[in-house]
């Protein structure tokens, strides 16, 4: 199923050392690769080359990286993954609100970066435009949206309507971070965006029903200060076969 040519990644980053290892990593993964060291150049290259994905550092020498997202989003929905530092949750949320697809906090391990890139590309892929696969599997969990049936290890679990919708939204953005505001809007409606503690309570309930150990969730992961991420690309837990299932389930 490996596509013959991997997409072009535009890296907008000014630090030569970071660029160096990104270049090595992406080359090793067969991605095509192009660099821009300033925001100005980054926007120009994004327009000229129409890359499959943009990897954007928020700390650029000429302009705020957030302005790059704003400009690209005026004319393109190309996936944008942001590189940011830990502790700058505000910047992360701002980037996501402006339309970035995901972020990786520096310092990051390469595996994490590649997982984010894969998730972002998958979301942008043609087969998943509507974001509603009928059957999704991750870990012990199987979600059949046709039958509205969720099973964990073959056992059916009952979800309340809100829990079900929450899971649906998380699966729609599988692998990507979803901000609290976005989840609240999509599950409860735009007038409930401030009630993030509801959201936390529902996530906790969902974890109890779906996760083996809710205090050490494999899939329903918290992005502190930002939101949640449904991790189905489970590279750490070793259930790679299931994650393949997910990426293919749209075709079946």
């Amino acid at each position, binding site marked *: 199923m490996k596509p013959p040519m991997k997409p072009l990644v535009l890296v907008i980053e000014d630090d030569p050392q970071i660029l160096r290892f990104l270049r090595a990593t992406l080359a090793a993964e067969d991605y095509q690769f192009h660099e821009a060291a300033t925001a100005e150049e980054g926007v120009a290259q994004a327009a000229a080359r129409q890359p499959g994905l943009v990897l954007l550092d928020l700390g650029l020498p000429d302009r705020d990286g957030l302005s790059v997202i704003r400009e690209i989003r005026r004319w393109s929905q190309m996936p944008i993954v942001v590189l940011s530092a*830990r*502790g700058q*949750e505000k910047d992360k949320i701002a980037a996501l609100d402006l339309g970035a697809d995901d972020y990786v906090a520096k*310092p990051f*391990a390469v595996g994490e970066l590649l997982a984010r890139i894969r998730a972002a590309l998958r979301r942008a892929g043609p087969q998943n435009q509507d974001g509603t696969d009928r059957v999704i599997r991750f870990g012990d969990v199987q979600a059949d949206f046709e039958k509205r049936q969720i099973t964990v290890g073959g056992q059916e679990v009952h979800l309340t309507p809100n829990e079900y919708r929450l899971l649906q939204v998380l699966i729609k953005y599988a692998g990507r971070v979803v901000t609290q505001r976005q989840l609240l809007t999509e599950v409860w409606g735009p007038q409930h965006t401030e009630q*993030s*503690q509801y959201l*936390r*309570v529902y*996530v*906790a309930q969902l*974890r*109890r029903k779906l996760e083996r*150990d*809710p*205090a*050490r*969730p494999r899939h329903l*992961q*918290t992005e*502190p*200060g930002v939101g949640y991420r449904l991790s189905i690309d489970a590279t*750490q837990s070793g259930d790679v076969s299931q994650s393949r299932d997910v990426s293919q389930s749209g075709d079946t």
Partner: protein
Amino acid sequence: MTSPAELPGTDEAAVDPAEPQPRRHGAPASLREGGLAAAIVGIATLIALGLRPYLAPTNLAMVYLLGVVVVATRYSRRASVMASLLSVAFFDFFCVPPYFTLGVSDSEYLITFAGMLVVALVISAQTARIRAQAANAVERESRTQALYRLSRRLSAQTRVFDAALAAAEVAEEVFGSTVIIFLPEEGRISFRKRTSNQLPISTAEEEIAQTVFDHGRKAGRGMERFPHAAATYVPLKGASRIVGVMAILPGSKGEELQADQQHLLDLFANQTALAIERTLSQNAADDARLQMETEEMRSSLLSAVSHDLRTPLASITGAATTLRSQGEKLAPGVRDELLESISEEALRLSRLVGNLLDMTRLESGMELRRDLYPLEEIVGVALQRLEPQLAGREVAVSLPEDLPLVNVDELLLGQVLVNLIENAAKYSPSGSAIEIAAEATSGVVQLEVRDRGRGFAALEEDRLFEKFYRGKSEGVRGAGLGLAICRAIVVAHRGTIEALQRAGGGAVFRIRLPLGARP
């Protein structure tokens, strides 16, 4: 009524036409007293005239002496001396034949006059002295009271300006006039640094205050130098230097301070000066101590940080250069080890920098971003962050399902947990389990992180949370910041954190957070 006391009186106004009130009011007072004394002698004369047909003239002298006693107990010594002289004269004039002349028919009466005069003068003198003593005692008493009040007010002040303010306030009460204390700013008396908001003196007087400050001698109103100034300026002379200037304005009636009040003023100024000086040196000592502590902290921070930054950097540099120069010759296992140490050490550096940043932010008074969170979620995030360090480690988490939400800053409490769990992993054998448990009791959530390590030395419990304190275990490195940050964060949440010896070996770190009202 004519009296010798009428003598001066008008020259004052001539000296200072701008001043409606005479500066010394001794003249009108003695004029009035003189008049009254004369009136009393007059009354004595009327009584003596009434008694004259019945009594011998020598006995009539007693009536006059009675009058002198009345004058002496009420009025000044001058008035009673005047009354004494007047009495002898009137006695001679009205009571000793031939009447209505100062001549005397019987020279025997000269002895009566002499005796009468001596007795009257002695009465005057003694009465005056007794009165002066009584007045003195009262004066001393009130002065002592005033000084006591001043010293009490002053001793309560820890800031120079507050001390000056208190002194000015007490002085105003005692002297019944406006008192302002000016403090110097870099050696200059500044009218801006003063104890009173209203400034009844023009800033033009600043120069006089400055002169007083420079030379340490009183000047201004009623003084030799600058007698036309609006206020009297008194230097506040401490033991080693002059710390300010006190300005006393004339009272509401424009009266000057009496000599004894001048004396009291000096005592006042002296006490105030000593208090200000003491406060100044106390502040200087505090500053010096703070400075020293800061320096000490900075140097221990520097040594801790430089050590902890250099160690992983050394490992990284070593491993990387080894790989570069001998990469081909190394066995694959060795290369993997070197690579692993590079990434581990880099992570360690990253955590250290994160902790340093957190500490700095906490110490600069960062605001908490609190909201209600399930504890489970915060524990989960911490365990997720520590995944590499906990690989293969058993972590037993026991959180009751009905645990209430906690009102915390999620990132900061998460950092506390990361530090505690990381510590537990660091200080206990790699095969032993780490336990995380929580329970809620009346209004408090208690969270514990337990390990089966060697625990810590007795009496070490409190020191553990100090900045840059390192546990006694060998072979474990750290900046000694982790637990200090934990405490800072927990305290910011109004909670407590303590280290306990665990029954059966190991350590327990217990956090208690108040559940508080829901927002």
